[in-house]
């Protein structure tokens, strides 16, 4: 078995280019001998003297980096801002895009909701992994190729715009109210107008008429209350935590029953669905898409509101703080 010193010298040697190896080996060996000798003179035993000397010289990888001038970092400060920017860009564009495409194709060609869900999650994870790995590898190689300065010159024009601040925008409010009221009106309208008619010439509603006993009036009320809250929010000129809570409750009050009814197959009118041969079977891909959409819209709206509320509160309080554009 080689001595600790021999192993140390070999470890340093591995970290320097071949051209310098012979010289560095001799130099490190001489340095260790000097350090050991100094300790021996002050009366330390040989074993401890060697150990202490090597400890003083420290990690051989670090010492070798000192000799060769190699970096001890994967990506240095010169390239790190570019690395971070590119990584953010790729993660926010490529990962959702690939995930949606793969999820939609699996659903379309396979149709099994379980397999679609697992394929989607696996795609999201593996795409994230690939983006992280290849971007990091490319930058680490650039760093080692000696590119320590960013190839992109930073200019003030690269600064991102600030998210929109301040009072509620009338356009958003009008769109939200129109959607809520429009949906409520449609729930009533579909009872009387339909592309299908039965033998007596009466319209066949799209939604199960049995739901009129409770669920349809309930959903209409939820939608109208939601429109009212939106209008009040506009009058307050922004989101507060009170409106956030109301909006969250209303979102869930609408989405949860719709999802449960969809999953139970009791949302649509059996007379309607059995009359059209293109109607997708219950639990099939189409109803999964509707289900995911309803849940997605509700969750997105809650998350979006959670993001806007603190901002609007800041704007409402003392209007705008100094450094922000009005």
């Amino acid at each position, binding site marked *: 078995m080689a001595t600790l010193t021999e192993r140390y010298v070999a470890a340093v040697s591995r970290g320097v280019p071949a051209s310098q190896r012979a010289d560095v080996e*001799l*130099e490190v060996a001489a340095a260790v001998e000097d350090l050991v000798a100094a300790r021996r003179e002050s009366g330390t035993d040989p074993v401890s003297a060697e150990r202490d000397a090597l400890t003083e010289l420290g990690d051989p990888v670090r010492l070798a980096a000192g000799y060769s001038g190699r970096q001890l970092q994967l990506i240095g400060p010169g390239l790190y801002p570019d690395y971070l920017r590119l990584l953010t860009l790729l993660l926010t564009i490529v990962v959702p895009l690939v995930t949606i495409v793969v999820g939609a194709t699996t659903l379309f060609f396979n149709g099994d909701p379980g397999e679609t869900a697992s394929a989607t999650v696996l795609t999201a994870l593996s795409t994230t992994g690939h983006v992280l790995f290849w971007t990091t590898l490319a930058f680490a190689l650039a760093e080692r190729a000696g590119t320590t300065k960013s190839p992109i010159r930073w200019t003030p024009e690269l600064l991102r715009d600030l998210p929109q601040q301040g009072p509620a925008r009338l356009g958003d409010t009008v769109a939200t109210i129109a959607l809520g009221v429009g949906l409520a009106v449609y729930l009533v309208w579909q009872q009387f107008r339909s592309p299908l008619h039965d033998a007596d010439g009466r319209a066949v509603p799209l939604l199960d008429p049995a739901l009129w006993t409770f669920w349809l009036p309930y959903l209409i009320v939820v939608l109208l209350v939601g429109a009212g809250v939106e209008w009040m929010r506009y009058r307050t000129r922004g989101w507060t935590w009170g409106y956030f809570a109301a909006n969250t409750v209303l979102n869930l009050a609408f989405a949860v029953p719709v999802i449960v009814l969809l999953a139970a197959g009791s949302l649509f009118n059996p007379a309607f669905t059995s009359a059209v041969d293109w109607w997708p079977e219950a639990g099939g891909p189409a109803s999964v898409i509707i289900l995911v959409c309803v849940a997605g819209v509700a969750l997105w709206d809650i998350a979006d509101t959670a993001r806007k509320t603190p901002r609007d509160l800041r704007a409402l309080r003392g209007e705008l703080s100094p450094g922000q554009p009005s």
Partner: protein
Amino acid sequence: MSDDEVLAGHLQELRRGTVVVACLATLTTPGYGYALLDTLGHAGLSVDANTLYPLLRRLEKQGLLEAEWNTEESRPRKFYRTSDAGTGLLEQMLAEWQSLHGSITALRGGSPESPTTEH
């Protein structure tokens, strides 16, 4: 972070460049790694061994030190000596040192002709 750590950090920053000046100044008489480590330590400029050895090699590569293996003694040792280029650089660095010292002294003294801008 304690005050001591803050002080240690700033002192380290301040001393960093002085190691090169000390090496070039000391090695006008040839010496080897460990002897230099010892000399600097006794002079109150303690340097870590794992900083000094690579530094000597870097200065050699830059042509500021000349190196030669001495095999006459019991163990072979690499002797370094400040080259002509190294002496020139040392003079420039010492001039810079003096100029910095002058600037700091002037700033602390608050000499009247120096412009002071206040907001």
